[in-house]
């Protein structure tokens, strides 16, 4: 059994990763539209916010590299490798989550081949690719030092890497500086969607400076937690130094942010009591002012616990800024709110969890930490045989446990899969409701704010009721289309087996409809019993499903419209806009309709 908190942590991380993996399978199998809450109003959601967070937390990488390799501050050297590891994992996570977000993920290399130099994305793509490559090069000496890679060619490569380190480091600093700020620049493209309290013409610079602060503070947290994990004492002096850097850059960022708001006169809206203003206040006060105050007190700086508390506040504040800007407060139509879907949430948790596992693997196997050629394996302390040790700590035991976990997690994912028997399984079910209006019908079956204009009276003069209405429900003269075509886009069965079973004496009645084997293929036609509902062509068996609402409506209208359009030479009768409005948010659409 899992015997200590480290094992528990890893096991839980594995569980999260596996759950995310299951969600990933669904996301790639069924596409973004089905598996996420993203839509045209909210093309950027949780994953984008997550990406901004990853990049912000990777800020320690270029900061420490600059401090040690450019400014030659040797006292920070013990931290360089772990800072670069964090940056590597951060950018790796960025790329992985990018793959999830792309509609055509296999086109991820396209920006490299086809240069669209008018696009901010072009610059971002190039920076990410180059900086990630640079990070790999910066980190590869650590990997190559491992005894596993002791061969002549690789050692030569290692030597070359050591000699060319400054080149890579400077390239890395330049690229990440560019990239950090260009991520902010993205939001300058759609200024009207950014909430005023988060908007600033200076967003790129704010992004860059706050990334230094967040990255350094995250590194501080990492140092403390990692040493706890490996039963070591973290060095207080290093933590204090990091905290100082973090504090000053945070101060700079705060001044810039609040100052800009003051300058433009937007700050008063922070007091209007909306939830955005509360979030803003919390972000600035808890994640900005409070840690600066705390870190200015010598007593606070003397204790690791208070240091990491302050650091956690800073990290939280910067993450909050990124997420608020890109997700929470981003303007979207009120009718189309964005809620992340389960798959999005699972993947959003899985990527950091996978990064954490990779991080632990690297820490346990590579010389990332100061002064250790190879970090000690945690579990090899067993000198005396213990029977519990047999399963727990061997690779075999780990495989056994993790695979059992995987069985249940994947099974849960299978539960989430849509049913397979529907042809249009990949479209979501949207209940259809009765249309609204009278003389001029405004048909909006699924209340999606896409109305269809239908002149009922005009059609009534020209046509029989039965052209459109099936009249198939007893004692009804105009059954609504939506009563059978109850799903917007999926065909649905119009036969209720349970109802028949209940009303016809349960099991005793199977033979009434089924001869021999009892399945849908042996059932008799509906008309054998329900002769009275017969109107037009025969419905052969109940296995015939009613088409979805959209198909049914198109089927009823299109043929006639096209014919009439030809006959009368009126092209405007058979185009989409004959019935469909140009999509508009509901209120305006309603207003416009009323005017007409």
């Amino acid at each position, binding site marked *: *059994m899992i015997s200590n908190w480290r094992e528990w942590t890893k096991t839980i991380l594995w569980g999260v990763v596996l759950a995310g993996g299951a969600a990933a399978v669904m996301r790639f199998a069924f596409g973004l539209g089905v598996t996420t809450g993203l839509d045209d109003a909210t093309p950027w959601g949780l994953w984008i916010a997550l990406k901004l967070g990853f990049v912000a937390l990777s800020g320690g990488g270029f900061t420490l590299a600059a401090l040690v390799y450019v400014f030659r501050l040797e006292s920070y050297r013990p931290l360089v490798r772990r800072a670069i590891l964090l940056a590597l994992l951060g950018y790796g996570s960025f790329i992985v989550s990018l793959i999830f977000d792309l509609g055509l993920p296999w086109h991820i290399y396209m920006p490299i081949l086809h240069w669209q130099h008018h696009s901010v994305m072009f610059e971002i793509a190039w920076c990410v690719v180059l900086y990630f490559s640079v990070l790999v090069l910066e980190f590869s000496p650590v990997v190559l030092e491992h005894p596993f890679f002791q061969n002549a060619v690789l050692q030569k490569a290692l030597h070359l890497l050591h000699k060319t380190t400054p080149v890579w480091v400077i390239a890395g600093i330049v690229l990440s500086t560019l990239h950090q700020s260009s991520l902010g620049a993205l939001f300058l493209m759609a200024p009207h969607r950014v909430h005023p309290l988060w908007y600033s013409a200076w967003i790129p610079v704010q992004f860059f400076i706050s990334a230094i602060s967040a990255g350094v503070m995250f590194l501080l947290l990492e140092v403390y937690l990692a040493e706890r994990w490996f039963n070591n004492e973290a060095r207080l002096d290093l933590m204090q130094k990091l905290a100082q850097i973090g504090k000053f850059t945070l101060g700079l960022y705060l001044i810039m942010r609040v100052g800009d708001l003051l300058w433009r006169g937007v700050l008063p809206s922070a007091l209007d009591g909306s939830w955005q203003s509360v979030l803003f206040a919390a972000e600035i006060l808890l994640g900005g002012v409070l840690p600066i105050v705390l870190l200015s007190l010598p007593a606070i700086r003397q204790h690791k616990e208070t240091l990491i508390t302050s650091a956690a506040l800073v990290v939280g504040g910067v993450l909050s800024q990124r997420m608020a800007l890109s997700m929470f407060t981003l303007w979207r139509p009120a009718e189309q709110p964005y809620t992340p879907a389960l798959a999005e949430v699972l993947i959003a948790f899985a990527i950091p969890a996978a990064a954490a596992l990779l991080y632990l693997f690297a820490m346990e196997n590579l010389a990332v930490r100061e002064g250790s050629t190879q970090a000690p394996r945690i579990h090899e302390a067993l000198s005396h*045989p*213990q*029977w519990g040790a*047999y*399963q727990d700590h061997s690779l075999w035991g780990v495989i*056994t*446990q993790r695979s059992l976990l995987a069985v249940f997690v994947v099974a849960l994912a299978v539960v989430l899969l849509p049913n397979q028997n529907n042809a249009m399984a990949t479209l979501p079910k949207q209940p259809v409701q009765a249309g609204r209006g009278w003389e001029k019908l405004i048909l909006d079956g699924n209340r999606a704010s896409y109305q269809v204009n239908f002149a009922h009276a005009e059609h009534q003069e020209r046509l029989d009721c039965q052209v459109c209405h099936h009249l198939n429900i007893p004692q009804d003269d105009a059954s609504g289309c939506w009563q059978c075509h109850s799903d917007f886009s999926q065909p649905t069965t119009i036969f209720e087996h349970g109802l028949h079973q209940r009303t016809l004496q349960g099991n005793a009645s199977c033979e009434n409809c089924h001869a021999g084997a009892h399945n849908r293929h042996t059932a008799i036609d509906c008309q054998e019993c329900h002769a009275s509902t017969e109107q037009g062509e025969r419905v052969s068996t109940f296995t015939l499903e009613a088409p979805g609402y959209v198909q049914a409506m198109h089927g009823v209208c299109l043929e006639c419209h096209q014919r009439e359009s030809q006959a009368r030479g009126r092209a405007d009768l058979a185009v989409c806009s004959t019935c469909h409005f140009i999509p508009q948010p509901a209120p305006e659409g309603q207003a416009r309709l009323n005017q007409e």
Partner: protein
Amino acid sequence: MILETGTHLQRQPNLAHLESKAFYHIDTYPGSDRLGGSRVERFLFAFAAILQQSNYGVLLDLYARSSARCGRCAVSCQVFQASQEARDVPCYRSNLLLDVYKRYFTMGGQLRGRLFGNGFLHEGGVDEMAELFYRCTACRRCHIECPLGIDHGLIAHLGRYILSEAGIAPKGLVVSVREQLEGKTGNTSAIPLPALLDNLEFLEEELVDSSGIQAKFPVDVQGAEYIFFPAVSDYLMEADTLMGIAAVCASAGVSWTIGSQYFDGINYGLFYNDWVLERIIQKLVGEAQRLQVQKILIGECGHAARSARQYVPTFAGDQQLPVVSVLELTEALVRQGKVKLDPNAISERVTYHDPCNIARSGWLLEPPRRLVRSIAPNFVEMRPFGKENYCCGGGGGLVSLDETHEFRMQVAGKLKAEQIQASEAEIVVTPCANCKKQLRELVSYYHLPVQVVGVHDLVLRALRL
């Protein structure tokens, strides 16, 4: 003691005294107490260590996951047939070990143990295992009848191995092995080399006296084709068998030798401890290397033949040597016409007992039969025979433990005695030192009018120069 006519023997087993825990005599190795803890803890320590280092984990996993406890093996177990005690059902015995495995070494078992707080191994459990694993004659007859293919013999082997590492092993085996591996004489019967050489000289003279055949027992011949390892007890008890082998080799001109540094084929490791098994195999191979021979020749001994045949390839490393049973060799020589046998030499009614170790796997079924049939026209088979034969009742090392005499006679060997009686043979031939000893004891215990001999005893009688 009096035998009635009919196949069912009169004596009903009196099992009351077998219930006592003194059934086997425990010998603990020096320093076993250093393992510390109770016997239960020692058992679990040993179990864990063995699981870590050996191949048994996969086996236990497979068995523990799928053992269906259908009880079909009960019918094929002669111990259960004779005792009718549920604890003798192979599956019951194996489940003792499988339950411990599940409780302590699988996730499900540990979880269940933590949830319900039960299933702990206790002193009584160790006692029961120690007793039951040595009530099995390791004949593996149940393996044939298990639809799932579970090998209860292997579980008994593993159970005994764990017990022995925990310090619980029968004295009879341990003392012999101690002499073999760490003693001065280097063999299980503690025969000093001078005594052996005297004995060989005596055998050569005896051979001339009895059958007029001039044959040598060559010792330390460098570069011989075969190095000969009989069960060492044969030098004391089976003179005729050895003389037969020597005569065959002499008449066919086989180049063979006996090693003076190591001349014991017995490998009790097969019965109770893999470590011992490996060390003995290495001694065997070492002596063969010393004399630069080409092949290893194993005498008439079931477990020696099987352990050498099966484990020389495993444990010899890069010093691989083929292992041949003397039965294969003689049969081949006869087939090639290098040895002439009188087809009517044995007029008595003869039957053949298959030693489990060489017959169960189907390895040596036909060669010894062909030999015996070619010289004894009046040959009958016992039913069942061959792969499905009954064990003599002394397998798995039990015959070396005098304390098990009553058990072997009344329970384990009862079916064999009935079988021999039903065959109405006058001579039972069997190429196995253990089987011969057990069968002789059975014959005298049940007063059967039967003579028990080895294959080469008969070959010697039929040999024509």
